């Protein structure tokens, strides 16, 4: 099992195989499943992602039961149609796809956690935008997910992907890094460039706290996926341009783990700090649950 980005990159270079292929081979070996079974499972995950990307941006959109989030993927879609976005249509399409997915999640719809539900919009945000941008086939999209998963496993087994343990950097930060690394590979970059993209993506979001208002995966989680997807595309572009992070990917993952452990409990998914502790955040919580809960 690949336990470091360095091993993954070295093996990819030595065997002249893309990372998705290494991931498929590892999965077949560890799960005792055939290539077809493994491929089929990933294909189903892609179906679920595609449905969520569409659902949140269709008609009036979706709304959570609390009313805190919803309908903004539709706003973005309409805004894009005017053709005057500041950051370009590719970027805003990515943001729309990410927000759409997380609005479906907040509305208790069906999503594929990548790697978590709170960060569920980031990876679909990248892949369904690159589909149009790079004219990707369905097979390539599935390959993208295996590559993203390979890098995600290294992050998860060396640091964390839980907001309660590592803050939002562990969720949206990890998702963004996975998306950046996989975007580089699918765009024709090298494994080293994927590793640089991953390192830059995490470095950019290092220290991001988990401070959900009323403990709900809504504010600020839904929009944090917008920065997750934007950061993924930016990091991938920087890596493809030849920029490097200088601090190697595995050391960056180690730094993320230590930063997460150093975060106070109030900023690790307790809903007691950050935006959750603002006057408005507390008012929202009181309105939804009718009482303040005990302190951590």
């Amino acid at each position: 099992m690949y336990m470091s980005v360095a091993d993954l990159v070295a093996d990819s270079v030595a065997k002249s195989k893309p990372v998705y292929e290494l991931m498929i081979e590892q999965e077949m070996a560890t799960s005792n499943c055939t290539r077809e079974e493994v491929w089929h499972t990933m294909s189903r995950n892609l179906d679920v992602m595609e449905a969520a990307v569409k659902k949140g941006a269709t008609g009036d959109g979706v709304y959570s039961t609390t009313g805190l989030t919803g309908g903004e993927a539709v706003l973005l879609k309409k805004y894009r149609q005017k053709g005057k976005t500041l950051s370009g249509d590719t970027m805003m399409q990515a943001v729309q796809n990410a927000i759409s997915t997380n609005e479906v999640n907040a509305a208790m719809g069906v999503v594929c956690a990548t790697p978590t539900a709170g960060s569920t919009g980031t990876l679909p945000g990248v892949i369904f935008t690159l589909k149009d941008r790079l004219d990707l086939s369905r097979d390539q999209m599935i390959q993208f997910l295996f590559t993203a998963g390979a890098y995600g496993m290294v992050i998860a087994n060396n640091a964390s992907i839980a907001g309660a343990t590592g803050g939002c950097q562990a969720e949206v930060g990890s998702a963004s890094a996975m998306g950046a690394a996989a975007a580089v590979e699918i765009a024709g970059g090298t494994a080293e460039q994927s590793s640089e993209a991953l390192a830059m993506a995490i470095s950019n979001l290092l220290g991001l706290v988990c401070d959900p208002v009323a403990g709900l995966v809504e504010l600020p989680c839904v929009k944090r996926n917008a920065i997750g997807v934007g950061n993924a595309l930016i990091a991938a572009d920087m890596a493809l341009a030849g920029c490097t992070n200088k601090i190697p990917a595995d050391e960056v993952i180690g730094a993320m783990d230590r930063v997460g452990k150093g975060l106070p409990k109030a900023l690790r998914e307790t809903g007691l700090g950050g935006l959750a502790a603002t006057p408005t955040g507390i008012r929202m919580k009181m309105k939804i649950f009718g009482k303040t809960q005990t302190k951590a």
Partner: protein
Amino acid sequence: MTVNYKSVFDIIGPIMIGPSSSHTAGACAIGRAANSIFKDKPMDIVIHYYESFAQTHKGHGTDYAIISGILGFDPDDSRVPYAIGLARDQGINITFIEEPGDSPINHPNTAIIDLKNEHKQVSVSGCSIGGGTIEIREIHMDGFDIKPKGPLPILLVQGGEDDHQNVTKQLADLTKVNAHQRYQTTKGNMYEYDLDRRLKHDEIEKMAKDYSKLVYL
């Protein structure tokens, strides 16, 4: 080597009903583990939440998720959000307790599930470590106090030394056993195995034929 995330589908997946993989899908998984251990319909369910779980269970749908798991639902089952009502309709008593102290198993996303009916009772301590993946760190069942390392899959078999030999032999054909432990009471032995990979459904079924009390988590 015991790692928590053994499959690419732990990272790209699970397919689930929102809103949180750790507090909803993971809670469902802890409930399912308790269901696999209890192997019967409970009449009383008591859930103790600690730390992040205690603070945010209401917002994350942790309550219905954990009950849905105890009822045996998958995390993407459309009945998940209605699990509490469905359980109460069956006459099951449910209590949620927000514990003020630190987690006794040392993780911010901790739930301890007590299940009881007229025949038996068990207690299962689990934590949700992210992305829907869980650890089970304590199990009290049939007089045994079992303390696994945490990462799944875990296999529990009751029996004697010959059963242990037989299970070890069967497992050798399937996967590496990262660790095993024996627990003793006056009533007999419980063997616990930490497995290197998840077993397929038919592989477990085959082993369960020989051991009716086999528990696979």
